């Protein structure tokens, strides 16, 4: 019986326009559309696969934020046994060090054998939470993981290196892994099932009394990339663009 805890996080949807707040050092949250960090989705999938294979319980924890209920109900509908929301002052300025400390404290009540995080989040500035939690809990950490199997109190993890090379690593449990990809693509769940969960499932809550923010970094300035060599943009509709592209390919000797 394995106790698996996954941390999930909402991140900016990067397809939307990102605006910088008036203070110049944070994203403007007002217009931001948040979605689950894609690697957390993979971490949830990996946890559910392990549970199906070896038994156990999956708990998913996320800090309070706009839209977090929906994310947690969706995860419950996929098969997580327990979903929990950390309540506290998580407004702008909270760094990963503070969060990792809060997680480390919270998670101890579950006595996890295995903790999974996404390998990285797209808005991360002061380092991924996974290694921080691992160290605060005195557990080993391995990241860039794309496959996990368990045998007793040992776990074997597939760690990705460039070019498709994999290192199979063994680690003693309890441990923390940073998931890059689950063994299978994240499963889909019907909206109707999520709606049903909203009626039947409960989100546990845990109050984080005080956030200890030491060790985090503060930005001096945030700005959109200064573009020095932007592409030559081809104007016109798809027909004109296609015509121009064929010319370009001809000039380059490609057709």
């Amino acid at each position: 019986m394995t106790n698996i805890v996954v941390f999930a996080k909402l991140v900016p949807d990067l397809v939307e326009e990102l605006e910088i707040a008036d203070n110049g050092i944070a994203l403007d949250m007002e217009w931001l559309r948040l979605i689950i960090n894609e690697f957390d989705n993979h971490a949830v999938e990996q946890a559910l696969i392990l549970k199906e294979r070896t038994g156990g319980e999956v708990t998913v924890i996320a800090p309070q934020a706009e839209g977090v209920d929906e994310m947690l109900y969706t995860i419950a509908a996929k098969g997580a046994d327990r979903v929990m929301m950390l309540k506290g002052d998580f407004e702008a300025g909270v760094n990963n060090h503070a969060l990792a400390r809060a997680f480390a404290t919270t998670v101890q009540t579950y006595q996890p054998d295995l903790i999974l995080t996404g390998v990285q989040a797209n808005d991360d500035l002061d380092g991924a939470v996974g290694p921080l939690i691992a160290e605060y809990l005195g557990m080993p950490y391995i990241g860039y993981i794309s496959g996990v199997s368990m045998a007793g109190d040992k776990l074997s993890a597939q760690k990705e290196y460039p070019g498709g090379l994999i290192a199979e690593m063994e680690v003693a449990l309890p441990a923390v892994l940073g998931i890059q990809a689950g063994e299978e693509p994240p499963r889909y769940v019907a909206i109707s099932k999520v709606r049903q969960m909203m009626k039947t499932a409960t989100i546990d809550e845990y109050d984080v009394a005080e956030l200890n923010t030491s060790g985090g970094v503060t930005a001096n300035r945030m700005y959109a990339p200064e573009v020095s060599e932007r592409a030559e943009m081809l104007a016109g509709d798809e027909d004109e663009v296609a015509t121009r592209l064929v010319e370009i390919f001809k000039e380059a000797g490609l057709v």
Partner: protein
Amino acid sequence: MSGDIFVVFEHLRGQIADISYIMLAAARDLAQTTGGEVIGVLLGHNAQDIVSHVAADRVLYGDHPALADFNPEGYANTLSGLIQAEGPRAVFFGSTSIGADIAGVLSARLGLPLVGSCIQIGEGNIISKICGGKIMVETVLADDDTTLITMIPGGYKPAQGQSETPPTATPFEVSIDSLRISLKQYIEPEAGDVDISSEKVLIAIGRGIQTADNIELAQELAELLGGAVCASRPVVDQGWLPATRLVGKSGKSVKPKLYLALGISGAPEHVEGMADAEMVVAINMDPNAPIFNVATYGAEIDLFDLIDPLIEKLEAAA
């Protein structure tokens, strides 16, 4: 605390990784402000030949059989002692499968600030690129602590951190107790599929392709232009194409004559695998997509509107 800048070298199976040279270039920039030396840190076993071309003032070499291959725990334990003893002004790690495993652990263990995704040093500031390449952030070094920095490629060329004269390497003592993590084996990437790193034309598809069925459209273009289809991470993670077709940090680096990117945003992890293509054509509906910053030509249109007329005109031209 000294003004010295440490660079933790990365190597894999006897090969130094380019990020090591890139970090040296950044460290050199930073040392101009801090006034210290650029000191390389090499952990390994019988690995001294790896650093024959590094542009470091000197190298600290920790040799131990348990460090022959990367082990997150062995590396972190060794480095935490060294950083405490030497008190450098900053330490560079790769934002990679190696560096990212240890920088966070050291930050928590030693209570040191960590700045991620650094792409460049500007006037003593650390400049990071986050949010898939859409946002830049500037931070400063901590006043009285060692700052840990993880580095991504894109701001420096590896050649900027290379030198013909090998630096002197001074050994330091390494003692490693039992470790909870061990390397069992390496698993080689699957062979047999097309080798995208040797194709002259690549049709690259991203999440914008929407479904596995649509890949056929890209395949048609690839056949007309005499090339192959490759992809960004989400396409491979969905299982729509095999891992052999992945371009970027965890995939292959490619250098085709033409890289036609369809529905790819241009996140730094993708760009590091295709930035050296001779010609990049990017098709994306988002005018702010970072791919346009590395493309030769771009068009802000729907890829599904473009493919049919493009196929027609290519057929006519053939």
